[in-house]
């Protein structure tokens, strides 16, 4: 079976539906809170391993424990950062609570040579790329706009403007095509890009333009949408009348909806989509169906717009709990493993708390140096003027 055959969908050439076609409500039914029948799942909310005809993989015990560790530590980063915001150490924090599986599944499917274009919530993917979580805090503490080298980690800086990065991802993928690192058959060489975005971003023009460019040039990019059901206060129904993954078909590439709270399924689907891209078969849309358990950010109050009953129902689908149940039921991790992981998480939390407060304060005079690769005389002059102004106070002070 070729990679492209793995992505099922309606046949656009069937010619069915004269006039204006079938009633959408009939086709898709009422709002599908369980993700609907097309949802790819390998691990149920109860922790039962199930199989899927197209997307199935054998996972080693080590891999399963690795996913679990990644998700636990990622949640710990999120909890600590949320607490740091409550303590006034961060100005704001964008929580990922509930989306750990979507991010770890996608993040672990990457190869070293792949490149990630994140939103501002991809803390789990950053973790998979080896970025010190302390570096994620700078943006939210207000000491920088992101302090890692995107080229070194294959992980772009967080993008605040919704959806803008999907075009960057597509262009980067076009660059990979020109560099001859797509479809060579060399696993060490062939590369792909993954663009992260959310359900709200799917309404942005840039995202739709990215789909068009990627399809037109057959760019090696995976559009990974975490549909967490909410764009701040607006539900997914405000963004789309059809399941998001089905939009891909209209752009001419496959789309698949995966259980974003199932790390195994997310890994399997993303890995297949990335491989398809690396092989030169073009873009794929992956809709990771999940739920934003927390607020949009620490400034948000979700009790104003959504029912706690919905949140409660999604608690039963927790991504970590289901893998924990699976590990325990199958004897893949013992009490010592969980205890050790708890300790590791506690140490990580302590490191973040200490490190956050120790992040160096930025200096306004330094910022002048970063505007251009080649500094301009007028900006250098403006900087010098302000430096002299500051020094004038110091001089006055020394006279006192």
């Amino acid at each position, binding site marked *: 079976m070729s990679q492209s055959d793995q992505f099922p969908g309606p046949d656009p050439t069937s010619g069915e539906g004269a006039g204006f076609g079938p009633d959408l409500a009939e086709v898709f039914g009422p709002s599908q809170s369980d993700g609907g029948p097309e949802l790819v799942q390998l691990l149920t909310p109860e922790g039962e391993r199930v199989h899927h005809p197209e997307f199935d993989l054998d996972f080693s015990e080590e891999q399963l424990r690795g996913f679990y560790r990644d998700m636990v530590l990622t949640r710990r980063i999120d909890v600590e950062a949320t607490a740091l915001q409550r303590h006034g150490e961060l100005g704001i924090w964008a929580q990922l609570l509930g989306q750990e599986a979507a991010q770890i599944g996608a993040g672990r499917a990457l190869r070293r040579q792949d490149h990630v*274009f994140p939103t501002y919530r991809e803390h789990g993917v950053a973790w998979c790329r080896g970025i010190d979580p302390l570096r994620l805090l700078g943006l939210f503490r207000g000491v*920088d*706009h*992101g*302090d890692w*080298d*995107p*080229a070194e980690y294959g992980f*772009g*800086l967080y993008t605040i*403007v919704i959806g*803008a990065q*999907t*075009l*960057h*991802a*597509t*262009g*980067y*993928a*076009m*660059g*990979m*095509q*020109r*560099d001859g690192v797509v479809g060579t058959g060399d696993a060490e060489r062939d590369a792909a890009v993954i663009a992260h975005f959310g359900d709200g971003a799917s309404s942005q*023009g*840039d995202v739709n*333009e*990215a789909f*068009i*460019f990627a399809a*037109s040039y057959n760019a090696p990019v995976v559009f990974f949408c975490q549909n967490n059901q909410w764009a701040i206060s607006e539900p997914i129904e405000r963004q789309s009348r059809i399941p998001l993954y089905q939009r891909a078909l209209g752009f001419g590439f496959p789309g698949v909806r995966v259980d974003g709270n199932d790390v195994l399924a997310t890994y399997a689907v993303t890995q297949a989509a990335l491989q398809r891209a690396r092989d030169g078969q073009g873009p794929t849309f992956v809709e990771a169906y999940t739920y934003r358990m927390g607020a949009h950010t620490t400034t948000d109050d979700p009790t104003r717009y959504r029912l706690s009953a919905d949140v409660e129902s999604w608690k039963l689908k927790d991504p970590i709990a289901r893998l924990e149940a699976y590990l325990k039921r199958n004897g893949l991790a013992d009490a010592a493993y969980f205890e050790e992981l708890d300790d590791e998480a506690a140490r990580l939390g302590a490191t973040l708390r200490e490190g956050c407060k120790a992040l160096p304060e930025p200096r306004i005079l330094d*910022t002048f*140096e*970063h*505007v*251009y*690769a*080649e500094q*301009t*005389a*007028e*900006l250098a002059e403006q900087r010098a003027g302000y430096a002299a102004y500051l020094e004038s106070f110091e001089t006055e002070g020394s006279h006192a």
Partner: protein
Amino acid sequence: MSTRITLAKGLNMGLRKAMEDDPKVLVMGEDVGKLGGVFRITDGLQKDFGEDRVIDSPLAESGIVGTAVGLALRGYRPVVEIQFDGFVYPAYDQIVCQVAKMHFRSKGRSKMPMVIRIPFGGGIGAVEHHSESPEAQFAHTPGLKVVACSNPVDGYWMLQQAIASDDPVVFLEPKRQYHADKADLDESATPEPLFTSRVVRPGTDLTLLAYGPTVKTAMRAAEAAATEGRSVEVIDLRTLSPLDMDPVLDSVRRTGRAVVCHEAHVNLGMGAELSARITEQCFYSLEAPVLRVGGFDTPYPASRIEEDFLPDLDRVLDAVDRSLDF
């Protein structure tokens, strides 16, 4: 040895040379490939450099600039063509929020060596959105550099220099001049640095500042003024961000008078910034307030009356007279 060329040819030759010199240089935009661009600036490039380097894009300006950001991050040097000035706005967010800020945001780790070519200005009898002068919107944005060429020789050199720059450059081309006057290009010459202004006609009584399409108008005004015994110095600004103030200030300190001329709306246009800087830095040399001549603060009019909107010889001379009579 020199070749006689139009501005369109100069730009085309400049692009070709840049693509020959550096395999990372790409050209992208609407109709830039097979057609050679609606103004033929990219004529013949796709045939010689292939579809991977001269990329016909889907009709989406944000998409063009946004994917160019990704290509630049991957190590390419994209030269983006925006088909007409008034079509740049769908890409405005990508230019202002991404292109301009990437180097700053990344503390210099990610460079953005991109050129955004925009045919600008009016006078071609076009329909709405095809005759605008949006330079101040970009010059106002930290992180961008903005230049405007006025003649074929500058077109050839400045475009290559902009492409070689590691910073993003908005490159404005006076579309009215594309196929107008010819000039002699000596490809073996050494060009002046990109971000410099140039005195194109020396004078002693008044400094006339222009760029892009108004340089020609300014030169004609200076010639006309000379017949009345008035010596007008004309400066082709060439660079709008950063401004190269030294030649401007040197000139105004000698002449004591300055008039700025551009097609863009006067309100908060380049003339406002130039006037402020001249006033701040040569206050005691000034014999008259700095005057501005430009497009009115109306949207660009229907083309049958565009010459009434654009600063012409008479309106420039009127400002020159008002300054000298002050």
